[in-house]
């Protein structure tokens, strides 16, 4: 079943490959370049899932999820972190703000799609 997914990453190439993977499975994708851009996109649409990087300029992924969860309409929107961060401390930060899953780059397309099907 097709889902609407918000992809947040400051790297254009990462946004490209994530979108390509999700679209090949029939999902609809909206891209954001950082946390601030993502919050603006969230204000105008509903999403079944958010896939976000952690290390981004202006507003990093952890702070973005924290701000997103304060909005009633997105409090229960699942979030998958897609990042190079593997430290236990960073994962704990993510879990504390409501992140549901953590996937370390580089990802394989089938692994990402399997996670999307479970979360969204």
């Amino acid at each position, binding site marked *: 079943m097709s889902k609407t997914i918000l992809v947040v990453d400051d790297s254009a*190439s990462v946004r490209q490959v994530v979108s390509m993977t999700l679209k090949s499975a029939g999902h609809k994708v909206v891209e954001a370049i950082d946390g601030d851009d993502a919050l603006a996109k969230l204000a105008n649409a509903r999403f079944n899932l958010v896939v976000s990087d952690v290390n981004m300029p202006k507003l990093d992924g952890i702070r973005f999820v924290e701000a997103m969860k304060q909005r009633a309409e997105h409090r229960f929107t699942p979030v998958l972190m897609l990042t190079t*961060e593997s430290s236990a401390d960073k994962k704990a930060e993510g879990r504390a703000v409501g992140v549901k899953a953590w996937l370390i780059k580089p990802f394989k*397309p089938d692994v990402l799609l399997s996670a999307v099907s479970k979360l969204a």
Partner: protein
Amino acid sequence: MSEPRTLSTNERSEQLSRLVHLQAWTGIGLGTALAGMWLPSISANGLYSLIAIVLFVSLGVAWSIAYRSVIASCRITAGRIENGESNSRQANETVACYDEAIASLGPLVPVWHDTIQGGRLRMETAVADLAARFDSIHEALAIALDDPDASAVNARQEAIHEVTESARAAFITLWESLDASAKRDEEALAVIDSLSQQNQSLITLTTEIRQIAKRINLLSLNAAIEATRAGDAGHGFSVVAGEVRALAAQSADAGDRIEAVVAGISEEVETVMQQAHANFESSREARRANRTVIDQTIDGINQRFDALAEETKVLMDLRDEMSHEIAGVIVRLQFQDELSQVLTHVEAALAEVHHILDSADPEDARSFAEGAHQLLGNLKRRASTDLERGVIAGRTPAQAAPIQTDNQVEFF
């Protein structure tokens, strides 16, 4: 006249050492000589003298030993003083070198920073473009090969076979109906043939009738002659003979007319027979040829569709292989993100180094050291990859972050 050379501390200590050795051995030698002189006449007083001599010699030896240790200490001290003087000179030279190095490195750091930043931005642009092109290829493949899987292709192939076999069955039914029609034509020909034979029988009968009429005519003539010979008694018979002759003539005439009609019918029947036979043969040949054409056409259609299905399967295999390769490309392209992060952190570190070098006070080495220490702390704080953390901790890049491409999702 050259000025007397000033002796170094080591040279002075060597001279002093030689003087002490001379003193010591002189004392030992004098004591031994005295002992040699006095030993032969040892008395009580001589014993005391001998004891004095031994004491003198021992004192000389002890003095020598003590002086040797003092001289050694002096040598060590002299060495330290000389080293201290050397270190002081070296320290001054080092400070000067550091100042020169800082002055030289200062302008280099921004160059390194800008070069790395420029390279990183070019790499990011190129990789983003590469990713977009692969996206286009992937999309084109998905459109070109619309079949979801092999089972759909097989289902379509079976449907096509059903259609072609239905067409074959329809053609065969038509052929069989034509065949049945041909059989009825054959039966009709047989009937016509039978009619033709009966017609011949009619011709034979009319010939016989004409012959009979001719013989009756002859008999009537003979009867008329005999009637004439009989005179008046044969008058009645002569009339009868005349009537019989008339009937014979009528019979012969009817037979001629029947023969003419039968001949006409026979001619037409023969014509029809010939045409019917010709049409029948032609139709049979056509039916045989049509059956062959039908079979060849249906078989040709099936072969073409089978070949098309094989080509579709080859394309699907190619699509699956391409999808696998594209998945590998997707994994490899993501390493650019890690590299970009590392390079961004290196750029930030170089900016800090430049700031430290620019604001460093040559007279305040502590501030320089504190800046360097803060630099390391910032490196650790900024590190966002296993590679950076591992290298900062002293591991090699291969040890810090072995390349992994099978990362799994961790659910919370």
